[in-house]
């Protein structure tokens, strides 16, 4: 229990960014209330996988009691960043935030793995490259190459690839932005941007009136619906149309959540800056996001620009405009449409993505929408507050742990006797589907907009 202050932070010291959390982490008094809520602790029974343990490691790093950051890396890397611990913590210690900072610190002392750096710097920020690569991969999959690799045992040498392949049993060959319905709205978005530029130059009355007639709602296409489940994005678009919202699909890149998850903070800021630039150009009033994970991250940009008042302000403005699709549709009166629909598919359960329930405190809107459908019986899932263990690439990188967590979740879902699970993040959707497949269940997992659109078009 040394009273010595830690080494003073300097800009060269990799501890610098972590040390500013000294007071925050000291607020953990080790009461342990969080442990029984942490999915990784529940799955392992190991303090090193508990929020309390993770916070104590960060504290040890800051206080200079642990000389080797690599020692802490397993513990810090296995946090799902779900945020449930903070929701039950009386002093609200932001463990997920601390883990991002700690990963950043570890990256700075160990260096970023080359593959990760490639993905974050060369791939995700460049939609064209990403499309090309994924299309190639998905074509290969469609041609049966992954199945072949699995059969020949080749996959055994690439466990992460095998896990990814299992997580993604079907891959689309046509991406969301390829659909004319979406492409047309991308054109409109571009037109709007051009008009705005013209207006800025001319200040003519005609230009002003044109721009005021152009849609003020933007639909931000998340990577999940863009590359993995285009039908979800299409459904979102159709629903927006149905409630009479005129919208465009602006140019944007990945929100950058994967970079944040890996603690690559300069990349996070690059993604954020690029998206803020792109989205500001269209002067939108609302930016609709149909994936809770991306939505939460867009709303969180400001926290990565502390000490940069200008960017911070822009990020705050973007957060103000960012709207979760369920609450937006509810506000626009979709419930009235749903009241006329028919549901004959049996009981339904709803899975709350952590980035909805903890990061955005959003649990009511999707339930209200589902509740508006006549005959639809919505059954509560036991331990609904628990993360499914998907958490983006976590499912692939920490496949075994992720599977254990999914197993508990799937058991709870199956106990409800539901036929369909509805959720609002593609990461959860893939994780739940994979878990249910392993449990030989025929419960279907559907994204909320997809589900609502299907119900309405019956």
């Amino acid at each position, binding site marked *: 229990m040394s009273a010595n202050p830690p080494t003073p932070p300097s800009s060269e010291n990799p501890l610098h960014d972590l040390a500013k959390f000294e007071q925050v982490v000291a*607020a953990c008094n080790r009461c342990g*209330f969080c442990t*029984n809520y942490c999915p990784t602790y529940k799955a392992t*029974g*190991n*303090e090193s996988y508990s929020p309390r343990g993770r916070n104590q490691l960060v504290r040890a790093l800051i206080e200079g009691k642990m000389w*080797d950051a690599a020692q802490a890396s397993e513990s810090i890397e296995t946090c799902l960043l779900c945020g449930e611990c903070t929701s039950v*913590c*009386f002093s609200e210690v932001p463990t997920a935030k601390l883990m991002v900072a700690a990963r950043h610190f570890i990256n700075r002392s160990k260096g970023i793995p080359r593959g990760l750096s490639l993905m974050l710097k060369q791939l995700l920020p460049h939609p064209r490259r990403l499309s090309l690569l994924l299309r190639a991969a998905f074509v290969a999959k469609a041609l049966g190459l992954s199945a072949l690799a699995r059969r020949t045992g080749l996959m055994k040498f690439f466990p992460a690839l095998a896990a990814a392949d299992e997580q993604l049993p079907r891959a689309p060959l046509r991406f969301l932005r390829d659909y004319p319905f979406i492409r047309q709205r991308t054109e409109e978005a571009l037109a709007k941007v051009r008009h705005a530029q013209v207006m800025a130059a001319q200040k003519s009355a005609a230009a002003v009136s044109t721009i005021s007639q152009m849609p003020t709602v933007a639909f931000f296409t998340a990577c999940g619906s863009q590359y993995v489940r285009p039908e979800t994005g299409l459904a979102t678009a159709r629903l927006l149309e149905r409630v009479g919202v005129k919208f465009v699909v602006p140019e944007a890149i990945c929100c950058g959540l994967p970079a944040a998850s890996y603690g690559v903070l300069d990349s996070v800021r690059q993604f954020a800056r690029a998206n803020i630039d792109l989205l500001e150009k269209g002067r939108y009033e609302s930016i609709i996001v149909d994936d809770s994970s991306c939505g939460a991250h867009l709303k969180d940009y400001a926290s990565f620009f502390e000490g940069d008042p200008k960017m911070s302000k822009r990020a705050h403005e973007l957060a103000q405009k960012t709207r979760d699709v369920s609450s937006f549709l509810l506000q626009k009166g979709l419930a009235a449409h749903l009241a006329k629909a028919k549901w004959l598919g049996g009981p339904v359960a709803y899975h709350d993505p952590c980035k909805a329930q903890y990061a955005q405190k959003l649990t009511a809107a999707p339930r209200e929408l589902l509740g508006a459908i006549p005959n639809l019986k919505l059954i509560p899932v036991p331990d609904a507050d628990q993360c499914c263990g998907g958490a983006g690439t976590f499912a692939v990188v920490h496949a075994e742990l992720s599977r254990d967590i999914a197993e508990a979740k799937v058991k709870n879902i199956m106990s409800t006797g539901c036929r369909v699970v509805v959720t609002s993040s593609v990461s959860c959707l893939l994780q739940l589907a994979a878990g249910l497949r392993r449990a030989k269940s025929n419960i279907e997992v559907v994204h909320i907009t997809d589900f609502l659109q299907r119900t309405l078009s019956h």
Partner: protein
Amino acid sequence: MAKPTQAVSSLNPKLIAELQAIVGEKSVLFQPADLHLYSYDAALDRANPSAVVLPSTPEQVTQLVRALALHKRPFVARGAATSLCGGPVPLKNAVVIGMSRLQGIGRFDKIRREIAVEAGVVNLNLQQALEPLGMFFPPDPGSQKACTIGGNAATNAGGPHCLKYGVTSHYVVGMEIVLPDGQPIHLRIEDPGYDIVGFLVGSEGTLGIATRFRLKVIPKPIVVRTALVSFNTIEECIQSVTDIIAAGLNPATLEAMDRTVVEAVEAFIQAGYPQAEAVLLVEVDGDKVEELDSQMKQIEEICVKNGSQEFRYAKSEAERVKLWDGRRGAYAAMARLAPNVLVEDGAVPRTKLPQALAEIKKIAEELDLRVALLFHAGDGNLHPQIIFDERNAEHTKVVKEAGYRMLKACVDLGGTISGEHGIGIDKREAMRWVFTRETLMLFRRLKNIFDPENLCNPDKLIPLVSKPAAVPPPEDIEFKVGSDGSVTPADEAEMTRIVGQLARKKTLFGIGGSESRFRVKENLVIRTSMLNRVLDFDPANLTITVQAGAPLEAVRKSVEAEGRYLWVFGAGTVGGAVATRASVAPPLRDLILGMRILLPTGEIAVMGAKTMKNVAGYDVPKLLLGSFGTLAIILDVTFRLFPYASKESKVEKTRPFILKDMHRRIKKAFDPHGILSPRTCGLTETDLPNIETDVADPFRGGEVGNIGDRFWL
């Protein structure tokens, strides 16, 4: 920064391999980061283990303990480490056995109303499992969201509802425990002889590692009324509690909190606590609405008389849950005010609550500390919480000193140093204030007969006792032996002298009260008949202390005249009732708060106090239950009284039992010379020499471990 990762463990590689063979490679941890995370509990003391093992089954625990015992490596069981006294902190670089994976909950036995659980089950998870059955497990410590049943049993945990329903030991009816040599044994409270189950509950993991428990559970009350009362001063609040108890009311909880606690809690959960100087959370429960309403009315009257402001009922179950979330989160919420909080756990007789409060406030003022007050006021259990930052070493020292002074104040008021948290490392030295040297030596002997190598949670609980200075034996006295072979000392002093003399001469003897229940077979019998006085009757605190030779029926009658009830039934003497465990319903084991015994060495051991809760030291009185005069002479007993008559009163005919191995071992700790009542319990002449050999040395073990700078050392 760039030093290579190394696996450092002080353990012998062969032992590591053995441990890995039992639980699997991944479940044995010895990286420095892992060891760091198993060095703490929720309090301040820390010590690194040499390794951590995570078993998944009770059988693995047995194998692990066996392997560790063979290698003579110390070990400590750890549940969720929510302990507030350093209980699971591994001194002597002990190997931590993490119990968190033992999550099994068995089927509910409807007839006995019992459920089997594994040690790692979280208290709240058990409550949730019982909910659909309409049952509940009453111990509900503040940490119930995280703490395990194993931890609850180790510390004999309480919680707000134990005011009415009693503590963990009332509900553990059986256990499977691995003794420190790796031998697993099954125990039930109905087993003939000593109440070993009751004795092991609260032994803080120093006598073995319990892996499974059988718990008694009870039906949830049909009606619950919860109210929040606000006061202008904490003194008014506490006085109301003292008056409510003295009035003979029977609320389920009486929880007092001051403004600091309320504000910290409200900042996080907005439970709806008023901004008052003090609040009292009152709950009554039962089957009949009218009864509860009338109780609440009386409580309200008492509060108003003491100057209460608002008396507000929880209007819905949701509101009630929220209020309780607030109360249970009080410790956790202190973290909003400062990084550390020292929570003390003294207990006093309920009539002394106002005085204890004044003392605590005085100490805080003198040392200029910020103290939040949170009391299980109904059972006199005080949790002053001193907030500080451990990074300031000077201040930390002052805080610890304050904590100790507060405990001392409780002891001086006839109370104890721990109501429910346990002793662990934190209060080990304070044990000297409540226990005599002779009592501490008895504890040490008991520890030694279970754990001769001091391997099992070493160096906790019992402070080091120095060898007594050699004094010349007192001169022999003459005492009169009746024609029936019995001696009847006139008082305690004479009895002590006589027993001392018998011990020196190794003369066999037995103990007799009225011999209404069984006949003592020894040639020489010491009679307790002259020890027949009521030493203390405290109707306001609901306790009585009575000598062993007092006739039970007369005692019962005399307290009933005052509107108080002693729930111990049958005829004969008080001591006889305890020694034969004849009064079975309500369970006698739940009614004993304290006891003084005369050991067959001539020494007196004193346990317990006039407090409702007391977890300081081993629960030795449990061993005297059903001991049939084989362990010690009971001198006097402190019982809990009730303001109303018991619904049941069952007395069973019990008979002396045959001492099995475990009984003989325990007897050794009390009676190292083997002179007390051997024949009564079927020990033959040939058994006697066996008993006398291998007397456990009370001075072995207990070196001070790696506990850093402690200001009192």
